[in-house]
């Protein structure tokens, strides 16, 4: 039989209150100390401890009172605590560096695609489609689907001279034979990064780190293309000087948040685009100036990571560095960036930020609420996310404690390894 009154009944509420009153112990004996109650309130206890505290507090008037007072007295808006060493909020850097890095990656892609002869090339709209005006990133995005040929065959039509696709974007003589690799498409769509409005160019000498970064930049658009279940053409023209290095021994110096540097073959000078408040840079040549061809290749191989998180020295004296970026790609190095080991992330969305409190624990967040964590340094697990929006930053203290910041500046913290998240007010009270 249904309850006689399923709706709110103030009289029954009074009965409940009376019943609770009778069932609550007000003696205040064997109560946990303030430290434990505060830790429970801050969600800092282990699951077992939390259960104990909760079980006690559920029937203890004193502890209920303390918890109630903690809730009542929590400052809603707090001021930033003065610190002897001036420091910006930790997420300040990320807030700007992430979009800057993204913009730079986008620009490098554009530059590489549109300028460098014999490098990454995309079959885009014919010159007529773009007219005489300079080709832009948007042009590329709009033009690309039309130019994609039907996906055919999973295998590369020809063994690449450069082992891996992410290593394959190399400069070389235009006349050199072109190696084609075709991409398989399977991943969900990822929103395109915003194209920067104003750009400036800066010239610099290539570094070893560039060799890893350029493929990431060159293929930063790959996830979008993957979403279309089609293929993108990457024409690989091996440079005469580029050795057929083993893909398993990719090298690259830790670039911090760099990731914006484009990779290139030895001896080549390249241009890296950076965002600057200057008039628009000279437009790249029309897309059609560079022919493109179609090939296939495992998508992940084209998505080199571009951001890094380096742990402190672990208990065993080792330091680990993770780098990550577009397409959910994660790589780890334990030899300070000499070699990198790719790790399965289980996601294909762009990863925006990471934090590694130890050499085995690392948290990485990305678009669409992706929160990843490894606790053994090797296997990644996607955690429940408090938001489906894009995440911009993460600060991890351990494998259980972390704070993440969404792109809308909402902060969430977990103290149980991502099982539960709590919306966090900007609390600089202490």
């Amino acid at each position, binding site marked *: *039989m*249904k*309850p*006689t009154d399923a709706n*709110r009944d103030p*009289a029954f509420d*009074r*009965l*409940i*209150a*009376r*019943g*609770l*009153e*009778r069932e609550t112990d*007000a003696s*205040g004996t064997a109560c946990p100390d*303030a*430290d434990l*109650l*505060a*830790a429970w309130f*801050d*969600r800092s*206890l282990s699951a077992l401890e939390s259960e104990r505290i*909760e*079980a006690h*507090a*559920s*029937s203890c*008037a*004193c502890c*209920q*009172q*303390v*918890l*109630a*007072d*903690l*809730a*009542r*007295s*929590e*400052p809603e808006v*707090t*001021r930033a*605590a003065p610190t002897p060493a001036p420091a910006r909020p930790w997420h300040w850097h990320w807030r700007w560096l992430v979009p800057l890095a993204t913009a730079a990656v986008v620009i490098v892609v554009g530059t590489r695609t549109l300028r460098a002869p014999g490098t990454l090339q995309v079959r885009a709209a014919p010159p007529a489609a773009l007219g005489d005006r300079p080709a832009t990133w948007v042009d590329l995005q709009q033009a690309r689907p039309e130019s994609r040929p039907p996906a055919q065959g999973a295998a590369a039509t020809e063994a690449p001279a450069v082992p891996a696709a992410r290593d394959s974007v190399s400069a070389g003589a235009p006349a050199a034979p072109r190696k084609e690799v075709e991409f398989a498409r399977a991943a969900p769509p990822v929103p395109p990064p915003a194209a920067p409005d104003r750009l400036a160019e800066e010239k610099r000498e290539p570094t070893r780190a560039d060799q890893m970064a350029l493929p990431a930049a060159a293929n930063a658009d790959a996830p979008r293309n993957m979403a279309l279940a089609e293929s993108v053409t990457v024409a690989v023209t091996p440079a005469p000087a580029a050795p057929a290095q083993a893909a398993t021994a990719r090298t690259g110096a830790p670039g911090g948040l760099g990731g914006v540097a484009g990779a290139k073959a030895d001896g080549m000078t390249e241009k890296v685009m950076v965002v600057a408040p200057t008039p628009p840079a000279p437009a790249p040549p029309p897309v059609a100036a560079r022919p493109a061809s179609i090939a296939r290749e495992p998508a992940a191989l084209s998505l080199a990571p571009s951001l890094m998180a380096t742990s*402190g*020295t672990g*208990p065993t004296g080792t330091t680990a560095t993770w780098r990550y970026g577009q397409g959910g790609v994660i790589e780890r190095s334990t030899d300070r960036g000499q070699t990198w080991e790719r790790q399965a992330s289980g996601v294909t969305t762009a990863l925006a930020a990471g934090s590694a*409190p130890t050499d085995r624990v690392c948290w990485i967040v990305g678009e669409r609420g992706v929160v990843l964590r490894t606790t053994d340094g090797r296997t990644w697990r996607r955690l429940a996310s408090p938001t489906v929006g894009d995440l911009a930053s993460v600060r991890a*203290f*351990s*494998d*259980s*404690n972390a704070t993440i910041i969404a792109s809308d500046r909402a902060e969430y913290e977990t103290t149980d390894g991502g099982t539960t998240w*709590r*919306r966090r007010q900007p609390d600089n*009270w*202490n």
Partner: protein
Amino acid sequence: MPPAQTSRVGLVDERLLDRAFARSNSPRWNLSRDSFARALERSIASRFATEVKTPAVVSEYVDSLNLEELALACACAEGQVSAWAYFIECHRPGLRAAARAIAGDDAGGELADSIYAELYGLEERDGRRRSLFDYFHGRSRLSTWLRSILAQRNIDRARAARRTRPLDEHDEAAPDTRAANAGADPERRRFAELAQRTLAAAIRSLGPPDRLRLSSYYLQGLTLAQIGRVMGEHEATVSRKLDRIRRALRVNVERLLREEHHLSDAQVQECLECALEDVGMDLDEVLEERDTGIGGRQEKAGGSF
């Protein structure tokens, strides 16, 4: 006088201690490595008093601590001037605001000021000044711990005040509800007690989280948002769960009355009405006593679910 140093007991591995010390920013307060190590060991000893600890578990525990605040508390306990200056500058306003929220505007300032002596430590034991900061183990934020201390002190003060209240005030504050109900119909009285016993059983059958939600709402008078803060949930979730619990309670009470006490539907209704009638006679007085008793100032629930 600086506190006497107690010896370490070796609960912390040296490499772990190095890592924790580096994270703690202890030198900022002129806190020595040994002093920090002792604070860390106190924390570890407190955490693993009844549990087996392995190096990995201890390492994980140490990594989860608020080490910077632990160092600050440790430095304050040692009486480091720079640490105290920082503490006063950063925490005093929040401490006073929290005290006012807990004890009211009038008593809040006094409550906040009363714990400074304890924080510094006026008593000595074994040649060492006993600071309240020694009991902060870094498991929570320092601000939360301070507010927790304030809340407990407020309860102590309320209890002490109640103990010293004259007997005639006790009589006025706690009217004899039995006398008020003495003239009630015995059958209705029996029904009322039956319903209340059944409800008590239904409440006891709730899980601790549900019971804590109910108590926070009905007894502590927290708003849904505040309950959400306590339970780590969004207030909409709290509202939904409270509604579910309340419905479940009602269903269970009615089911128990029917199945265990073999009451008809009409009798169940009458039983609840009697209980509500009985509660109506004394609940207001009981709640009033609670509001002025253990917790001092109480806020009424600010929302409904």
